[in-house]
């Protein structure tokens, strides 16, 4: 039987939103990937309790949900940083030294283990070919594409993110 929502150690409001989305779909396991996509959209990642919630609501084993969530690179079980920097690791980017760009980000943000900086501000990961090979090496910063990135550009890109951040917080103060 489905548990009461408050028993899950995640934001109840978000959980309701996910529940509503699931109710809007046809029943059946065929929708599992779509549900996980939506869940990640809502929560930013897939916490264990969210997976449990999905499994119970769909009436399928939690192992199945976990199996699918771990299979696809799109899903993550770790909370992500406020800013997500994805370095494309397609072949075209690789032969143009995308790995050096990745190293530069990691070392500047002092990320040693995992993908997220200690302060939780930045996540640096790799992404499969996004098909913008003409601009290799390519990175995505919060979803926006930057092309022809050199390791030397990394410092400027990080500064840009911070400037944006400060601007937004100033605007926030004024309101």
């Amino acid at each position: 039987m489905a548990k009461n929502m408050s028993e899950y150690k995640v934001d109840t409001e978000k959980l309701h939103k996910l529940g509503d989305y699931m109710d809007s779909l046809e029943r059946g396991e065929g929708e599992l990937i779509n549900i996980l996509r939506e869940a990640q959209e809502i929560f930013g990642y897939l916490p264990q309790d969210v997976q449990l919630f999905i499994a119970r609501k769909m009436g399928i084993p939690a192992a199945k949900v976990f199996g699918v969530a771990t299979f696809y690179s799109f899903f993550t079980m770790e909370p992500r940083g406020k800013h997500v920097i994805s370095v494309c690791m397609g072949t075209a980017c690789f032969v143009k030294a995308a790995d050096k760009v990745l190293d530069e980000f990691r070392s500047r943000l002092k990320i040693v283990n995992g993908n997220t900086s200690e302060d939780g501000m930045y996540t640096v990961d790799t992404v499969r070919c996004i098909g913008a090979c003409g601009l290799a090496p390519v990175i995505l910063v919060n979803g926006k594409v930057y092309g022809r990135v050199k390791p030397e550009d990394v410092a400027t890109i990080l500064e840009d993110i911070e400037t944006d951040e400060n601007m937004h917080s100033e605007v926030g103060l004024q309101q």
Partner: protein
Amino acid sequence: MSNFRMDLLVCGGTGCQSTDSFELAEKLNAEIKAAKLQDEVRVVLTGCFGFCEQGPIVKVMPDNIFYVRVSPDQAALLVKEHIQKGRVVQELLYEEPETKQKLDEQSDMPFYKKQNRIALKNCGLIDPENINEYIAVDGYQALGKVLTTMSPAEVIEEIKKSGLRGRGGGGFPTGLKWEYTKKSDADIKFIICNADEGDPGAFMDRSILEGDPHSVIEAMAIAGYAIGAQKGYVYIRAEYPLAIHRLKIAVEQAYELGLLGKNILGTDFGFDIYLKYGAGAFVCGEETALINSLEGGRGEPTVKPPFPAEIGLWKKPTSINNVETFANICPIILNGADWFKSIGTEKSAGTKVFALAGKINNVGLVEVPMGTTLREIIFDLGGGIKDDRKFKAVQTGGPSGGCIPEQYLDTHIDYDTLGEIGSMMGSGGMIVMDEDNCMVNIAKFYLEFTVDESCGRCTACRVGNKRLLEILTHITEGEAEMETLERLKDLSQIIKDSSLCGLGQTSPNPILSTMKYFWDEYVAHVKNKNCPAGVCTKLLKYHIDPEKCKGCTLCAKACPAGIISGKVKEAHVIDKEACIKCGACEKICKFGAVLRK
């Protein structure tokens, strides 16, 4: 309808979008409005022109002037000079690298001269978000033709006769696939469009979906009519947001006009299309894995036979074709199988779209007849190697393909010839490498990819590829012996023979082909502990050329290990034993005195 006298076609593909083509289109619109020309001149966002290297691209019609690398700031200049004064803006024209000549017309450019566009015919010509423009260029006429004048068997016969083979990699005859699916007895059948373009470095399917989504929708309906399916699924990568967006719009518009749904064009035939998103797994390009993923599970392949043509999605007969294959269907129906067969080679009819990338001048998409040589593609269309470096190899077929060295540049490529030289067509990615690329390292890159993407179902692929990667890592770190190379070759062969699906059966190809053609490089890594291309960090040795060193002391200050010694204005020396090979000295030296070998 206003009488427009001029169209500014702005490339709205992902490549150009990331170089601000949307902003450019907005600015152009604003400038045109400011000049009160909005009833005469129109800005149209089109699909990819293929010339991504030179984006954003603006083509002015009917003047037929082709502008490259137009930044949003130059919108005002373009409107003022070209539109208001009728003068071609010289500084925005493409300059041919060899002759330094400015070329104004697209057809003059070597990049476009040898192309023959069938699958990409509407990319860069029409607005993909406007179904009327597709209809204006004979859109949905092929569907109309088959529904009113051809029987399903005749459609299949026509496709079989055309010699069209699957453009996704395997090269299986499309007509045969349809025939098998048609013959399977079942109440329900499915059409799947494989838009999970997973080969890194291949982006033709994305460009077709972004530039001409209706051509795929129309072809899926035709396929449905031919095999007796009423439902189609597009399985598309989540990494392609723009393609998803355009496809969604196209499907909606097709429904609005009754070109999808029930009773299409007043006939009894009905067809529905649904979008399903991939969640990032390379193996899902394999048919059975894709079906498992569509059903909501892990995208693991199953043993074939039974083939999807017999038992596919939800256990029903299913035909799976890739995007580029579908894009060829309507032209074949409209122009006839004989026309299509007259293009290309005997066993590989038609054209193929290749995605040129890597160390090449004109990165982009080209569509050429089968049988074009690699040299023509890389040097004539691709404009040769970047920065006048020397060509070393071209990798085709993605992680399943191989590296082709210089001596095979004159091969007339089709499905069979590429297989003969140890590579494969794959989906058509072509990554060009120069002398600065280490081939062992490239093989290692591909193995990292396959290890990451192996679904883990069969041992040969799951464990075998991991061992291959370990061996390659040993080689690049100078810890391998000559017999290691033998083991590498043996294991590669075993994995090829014993893996369950196409991923494992082809994953050692990058190793085998580089070992075959670049054996010397492997030997250099193993015997001399040296990376000839200067890539493998652990094998690098930095030293300072005493002739060039001016004794500026910059490198000594930059060295994090503090192992560079020398007095001011005297040649410095690196302590090779203590060097951590970080490259800081090389980066900072202004005289090019730090050498890497």
